[in-house]
C-alpha cells in the first residue's frame, strides 16, 4: 500500500520550483486557495517515518500528517534539489539528515515562530 505526504507550496516554494518539471505536479487545493504537491511514500518508508516521528499519523485519506515542520521543509528542499520524489524521500531519511531534522523537531516542540500577520 502507498501513502502520501502533501507539501504545501507557498509563494516562496512556488518560486523555487518555477520552470522545473516539478511545477507541473503542483495541484490546486480548495478551489486553488492553496497549492501543493503529493509525494507518494511506500509502506516500508511510511512505517519508518511513523517510527521516527511518534506523533505522526496516517489520516483518513492516506496522508501522513502531524509531521514536524522541519521534516516537511527538508523534504521540500530535497525535492527541489533532486527534482525526483523517490530520491527526495531517500535523502531526508539518510541518518545524518534525519538526525538534523529530529534535532530541529525537538526545538519545534518548544517554540514555533508566530506568522507575521496583522491581527484584526
Amino acid at each position, binding site marked *: 500500500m502507498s501513502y502520501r505526504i*502533501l507539501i*504545501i507550496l*507557498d509563494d516562496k516554494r512556488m518560486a523555487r520550483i518555477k520552470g522545473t518539471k516539478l511545477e507541473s505536479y503542483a495541484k490546486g*487545493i*480548495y*478551489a486553488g*486557495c*492553496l497549492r501543493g504537491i503529493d509525494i507518494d511514500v511506500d509502506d516500508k518508508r511510511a512505517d519508518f517515518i511513523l517510527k521516527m516521528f*511518534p*506523533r505522526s*499519523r496516517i*489520516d*483518513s*485519506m492516506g*496522508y501522513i*500528517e*502531524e*509531521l514536524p*515542520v522541519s521534516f*516537511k*521543509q527538508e523534504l521540500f528542499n530535497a525535492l527541489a534539489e533532486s527534482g525526483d520524489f523517490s530520491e527526495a524521500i531517500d535523502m531526508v531519511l539518510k541518518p545524518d539528515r534525519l538526525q538534523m531534522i529530529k534535532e530541529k523537531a525537538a526545538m*519545534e*516542540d*518548544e*517554540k*514555533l*515562530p*508566530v*506568522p507575521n*500577520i496583522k*491581527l*484584526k
Partner: protein
Amino acid sequence: MEFILEMPKPYGGRLVEAVSNNKEECAGCPSLDINSTIDMATGIPIRNAYREIMSIAYGFFSPLDRFMTREDVESVISERRLPEGWIFPLPIIYDVSEEEIREKSLKEGDRVQLNLKGHPFAYIDIEEIWDVDSKDLAARAFGTPERNGEVLRKALDQKHPGWQIYRNMKNRAIAGKVKIINEPKFRDPYNRFWITPAESRRIFKERNWRTVIAHQTRNVPHRGHEELMKEASFCGDIEPCNAILVNAIIGSKRMGDFVDEAILEGHEALEKYGYISQKRHMVSFTLWDMRYGSPLESLLHGIIRQNMGCTHHMFGRDHASVGDYFDPYATQKLWTKGLPSYGFPDSPLNVDKGLSIRPVNVGEFVYCPICGGMVYADTCGHKEAEKFSGSFIRGIIAEGITPPDAIFRNEVYDVILKWWAKYDYPFVNRRYLERKEEELEVYF
C-alpha cells in the same frame, strides 16, 4: 401539532450538587494535597483529580456523587454501569500512595480534606480504601479486543493517552462521596464559559430553548465543524433544535492538540462574528482529562450533556478517539443499535435505566468547489469535492500558512494566533501542560 420533546431530567433523576463553601466542614480533618497524575515515562502531567471533583460536585457526572469503590469499578468495567444500575462508562478513581495513607493514618470512616494549590478545596468521606493494580486497570478499563472485538481493534498501549492515565495511577485508592468547600475561581478566558448543569438548565429555560443539541469538542472549529453544528441542529422534533450547546472538554490533552483557550474562544468567535447567531448558540466547558475512549467516552458525553439539559447530541466519525484502536463508527453503532459486548444489547436510550438524550449521527463535511463551499459528503454529487482533516489543518497552521477562509474562518485563525503569540506555540506542548497545572486554569 404538539411538540414532542422537552428538556430531559438529569440522569438518575436529580443533579448532584455538593458545593458548600464552608471550610468548617473539614475542621480538624487530616488533609491530602491533590497532585497531578504524571506520565512516569515522560514526566508530563496527564491528569488532575481536581477536575473530576469539580465535575462530580457540580453535577456534570450525575448520578455519580463519589470516587469509586472497588465494587463500583468492577461493575463499571464489566457492565459499564454503577452497582445501582445507572450507566457509567469509565472508572473514576482517587488514587493515593501507600505513604500518603500511612503518613495521615487514613482509615475508612475518616473525612479527609483535599488541598488544591495549597488551599482547602474539597473533602472525601472515606467509604473504602482499596488496592489499585494499575497495570490490570489500564488493560481492562476500555475493554479488550478479545471481549469487545466488535469495535475494539487492538489492545490499548502506552501510545493511548487514556491507557496512560490509568497505568500511571498510584497503588491505593480512597473511595467515597466528595464535596467542594472552597470554590476555585477560573482565570480568563475560562471564567466566561464556566456554566454548571444547574446554570445551563436555568439559561435554557430563560431563553425558551426547549430542544438543544450538544456539540462535543476538543478542537478549534473549522468550517466543517461549523456546518456540522448548523446542519445537525436541524433535527429537533417538529422544528429544528432551538439551540446548539458547544461543550468543550478542558483538561490535559494530547501533545499537538489545540490549546484550551483557543478552543473556547474559537467557538466564541463564530457567534461573536455572526456565523452562528447568539440567539441559538452557547459555548461552555466541562473539566475532564480526556480518556479518548471513543464509544465509552461518548456515553460519558451523553450523561454530561443530558445533565446540562440537552435533548440531542451530535456524534461524528471517530468520536473522542485517538489512533486506530476503535472502529471509526463505534460510537454511532453504540447509539444506533448497541454494543452487546459492552453491556448494551440496544441503544443506550432503549435499555433499562437508559439515557434520554438522543443521538444525531453525522457523516463527513467536505469542501466542494462546484457548490462553492462546505457540503455534506453524502448529499453532494460532485466528484470534485475535497476532503480535509483536522490534522491537515494543524499541519498548515504549524507551517505558518494562513488557512484559506473556505476551510477556516479568518476570525477563528486570529484566535489561534493570539494564543500562539502568548505561548510561543499554537498547540499543546509539554510546557503548556506543566504551566496549566500550575497557573493557567484556576486560582483561589
